[in-house]
């Protein structure tokens, strides 16, 4: 059985061929979730079955049992989800206050944000939280479409510095100050 035959007997009438193709692609892409669940299941099962439990087994249920159940569950759910998707079932994308689902996903922004976040994570220890945090905020605001090159960095710097002082000095939650705080 292929996805094409699976989606064609769906009773709902499709308004336009372009929309039909896009929705077919969307059906198709959810199979990616099944593949990921399947891979996760295999991973969990492999880990459980290669576990060396002879010494550590205590009681009738060892450390393997639950991972095996979870792993099997993942495989079963991956299969069930695949069947559901092929039958035309579709996961409902989450709506929200600032979400406009009528336009296609903006992958550039998502990748950019992830990259900026990773960059800040790498920088936090060498340059300290105030600088890395400010870069994170400014970068994220830029990625999300803010182009006020005067206001954005100022807000980022103030927010980051205040957060650092409040957490590190007032609340007793240590954050790395970095060389900048060493100078001040």
């Amino acid at each position, binding site marked *: 059985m292929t996805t094409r035959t699976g989606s064609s007997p769906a009773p*709902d009438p499709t308004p336009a061929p372009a929309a039909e193709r896009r929705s077919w692609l969307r059906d198709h892409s*959810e199979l990616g*979730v099944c593949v*990921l*669940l399947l891979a*996760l299941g295999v*991973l*969990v099962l492999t*880990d*459980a079955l290669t*576990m060396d*439990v002879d010494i*550590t087994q*205590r*009681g009738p*249920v060892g*450390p393997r049992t639950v*991972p095996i159940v*979870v792993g099997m*569950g*993942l495989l079963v*759910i*991956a299969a069930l*989800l695949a069947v*559901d998707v092929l039958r*035309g*079932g579709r*996961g409902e994308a989450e*709506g*929200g*206050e*600032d*979400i*406009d689902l009528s336009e296609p*996903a*903006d992958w550039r*922004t998502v990748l950019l*944000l*992830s990259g900026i*976040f*990773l960059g*800040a*994570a790498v920088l*936090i*220890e060498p340059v300290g*939280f105030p600088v890395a*945090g400010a870069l*994170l905020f400014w*970068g*994220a*605001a830029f*990625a*999300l479409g803010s182009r006020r090159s005067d206001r954005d960095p100022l*807000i980022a710097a103030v*927010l980051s510095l205040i*957060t650092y002082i409040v*957490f590190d000095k007032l*609340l007793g*939650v*240590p954050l790395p100050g970095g060389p900048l705080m060493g100078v001040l």
Partner: protein
Amino acid sequence: MNALNSLMDGFGTALTPLNLLWAALGVLLGTAIGVLPGIGPAMAVALLLPVTYGLDPVAAFIMFAGIYYGAMFGGSTTSILLNTPGESAAVVAAMEGNPMAKSGRGAQALAAAAIGHFAGGMIGTILLVALAPTVADLAVDIGAPDYFAIMVLAFIAVTSVLGSSRIRGLASLLIGLTIGLVGLDQMTGQQRLTFGSLQLADGVDVVIVAVGLFAIGEALWVAAHLRRAAAEPIPVGLPWLGRADVKRTWKSWLRGPFIGFPFGAIPAGGAEIPTFLSYVTEKRLSKNKDEWGKGAIEGVAGPESAASASAAGTLVSMLTLGLPTTAVAAVMLAAFQQYGIQPGPLLFEREPELVWGLIASLFVGMVLLLALNLPLAPVWAKLLRIPRPYLYAGIMFFAAVGAYAVGGEVVDLVILLIIGLVGFGMRRYGLPILPAVIGVILGPNAEQQLRRALQISDGSVTGLVNTPFAVTVYAVIVLLLAWPLLKRLVIRGRPRADA
């Protein structure tokens, strides 16, 4: 009355100047963050977790109580003035509240919501005081098989009561259980899913999972679909109610809690169902049926009161059984675990100062909520105009602070981003978030109880069903599982409605 004495002691704890300050700060922070569009109570609590790391547990939970109630109230303000609720419990508030705001009665809608929250929270907390010690006493005797049964019930309830697809709910639960498996096995010290990494041997911190799924996942998801022109909030003045409005709404305020409280206490999705039930009830009982849909004030008052009371109900199961029934309770449970405190029947005996201080501060928080939020409503309304790039950049920023504060390790930030990407994918494909969080938090605990029960029975499966309590719980589970099948038999033949 023992409970009353303990409560008086609790007030002694809650009313110290410093703790009052924490409660007020919690209410203000919770409301401010709850008002911000796109941030629900669960994300608010998760993002504010690190603020409490440096505090002692009593102060931390007093602050949490304020954040919880504040965030719920903030969410309904957003619903009323923006009409695009991001959070399911606030959907009902928009149904009558937004038409009211549009027709220039926004001040009355906000007042009805604020007083509704106050009434619901008060009645709910009184019920909590009356019931929680009793439940805790009863629960002291329950053993491993009973706990395991309750947790299975929680798993089944979050996957099958909520959301439109059980398969997707189960997939989410299994993802959560898998994350919960990472680390050392609690009973034998066996490494599981660590791939030899030392960092993973400690397991993935629940706070990182919660912040990743709720905050980073949401920020990335919004980034992919950001509305070009943000919805315009309706300006509003100081909330107030006329005599006629009070006459119409006081019964609704009092009815709401009795719908909300029981639903909060059971794992049925928190405030979503009771707010809707309250809405339907108020509509049926209303004398002004023609106003419904165009801004009936009872439709704001009743559901808001029910929502607030359901939060109190949630605390009953969370404090007495260690069973989180909502996302917020799940995050709060994570916070308890952070302090090495295990909520459950023994909590009332072991940590009386903490529990009763927390409960007393709920009353205090409620009064503060009303006293602060009525005059501050116009300020909160201004928060709705925050430029969206700043809002979501701020969420990413504070998520990073929270994850880093957990252990001061960069690898936590990387794990946070990965879990955030998982949360993004889950939102894209309609996998609900709550089952995953419940899976991470309850999974390891459920496994322990299961193994303990089977150890006692020497491996015999009957050891799981040898108490009347466990049997009752399993009967409820079977009923929950069978219910949609029965319903499907009735409506079979109709064409399937796709999303």
